[in-house]
């Protein structure tokens, strides 16, 4: 939050939660952290807002926007509750990641329940972070790197190439020389330090996940120990 003074960009976060109280909370948290916020109460409304409408037969429509713009209103991040009636946060995450126009938007999942299998499922589907509720101001500090990374990517590369994939390729080459190394990009040192100050929420998840070896399908979740 100390960076706020130098930033001219205002990032827009779409927050999805069926609970009115939690919507109010997340809105205040995000605004306090200098984000622009829109809140909706369902996954369906979130997709509508993002410009992805479904046809009545359930197949998604292409967004009604020009090719240069990604959606009707620019959204830099989606933060969604997991447990929602109808479309869960996981379903929403999947739909976003399956959409060619939306898949680069970072998605964060929130849940009141610490279920390791749920957490890993979400991360494997492409969620950037998983927050345990109630979400705190300090949790939101973890959002900045994800939003900044995507924002930088959009400026540098008009095509939908994602740089981490390039890095992964480079590491693949390295891997041939060093078979023990993980095929994961190293997060910047600052981010690693930030992640070392994790709350115990993260730790509880790490403990349950650590015995598994990492593989290429696991996203760049820098909170997980980078040791093998």
């Amino acid at each position, binding site marked *: 939050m100390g960076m706020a003074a130098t930033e001219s960009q205002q990032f827009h976060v779409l927050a999805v939660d069926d*609970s009115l*109280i*939690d919507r109010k909370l997340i809105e*205040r*948290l995000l605004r*306090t952290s200098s984000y622009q916020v829109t809140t909706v109460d369902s996954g369906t409304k979130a997709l509508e807002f993002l410009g992805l409408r479904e046809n009545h037969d359930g197949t998604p429509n292409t967004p009604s926007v020009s090719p240069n713009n990604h959606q009707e209103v620019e959204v830099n991040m989606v933060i969604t509750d997991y447990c929602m009636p109808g479309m869960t946060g996981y379903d929403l995450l999947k739909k976003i990641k399956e959409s060619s126009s939306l898949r680069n938007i970072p998605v964060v999942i929130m849940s*009141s329940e610490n279920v390791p299998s749920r957490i890993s499922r979400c991360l494997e589907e492409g969620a950037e972070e998983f927050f345990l509720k*109630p979400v705190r101001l300090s949790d939101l500090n973890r959002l900045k790197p994800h939003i900044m990374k995507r924002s930088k990517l959009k400026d540098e590369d008009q095509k939908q190439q994602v740089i981490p994939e390039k890095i992964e390729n480079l590491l693949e080459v390295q891997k041939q020389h060093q078979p023990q190394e993980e095929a994961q990009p190293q997060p910047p040192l600052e981010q690693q330090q930030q992640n070392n100050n994790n709350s115990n929420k993260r730790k509880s998840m790490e403990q349950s996940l650590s015995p598994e070896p990492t593989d290429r399908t696991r996203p760049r979740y820098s909170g997980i120990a980078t040791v093998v």
Partner: protein
Amino acid sequence: MEVGQMQRQWLDYTRSLFIEGFLDGQFLQLEQLQDDNNPDFVVEVVSLFFQDSHKLLNDLTIALDQKSVDFKKIDAHVHQLKGSSSSIGAQRVKNCCIAFRNFCEEQNTDACLKCLHQVKQECCLVKNKLETLFRLEQQIMAAGGSIPMMELSF
């Protein structure tokens, strides 16, 4: 009563709410989110909670009164109440909900009824406590004072 005294009273009262477990750290988070641009944030969120919980408790009463109890529905209501109480830091209400959900899983109607009774009591208690707290705050502000920043150091 002069402002300093009222502020001390507020501090003592707040401290007692934490020590007795009515509130937990999340309540402090709410206070941190309140500022000059959002001066009523805590009261607004707390009010929402009591509106929400009032309805949920009614729904739970009706649901547990049915001949054939729908435990799935009850669990869904309790899950919601647990979530919202957790979001405002109403610790004792939240803990009641956790126990309640366990009995839902066991499909134990009697135990659920006891839990419902308990959770109603806890909601009532914390409502009274918070109303007292907000009244104290209003008195301080009316006297030209400000609300001290609370830190959890015990």
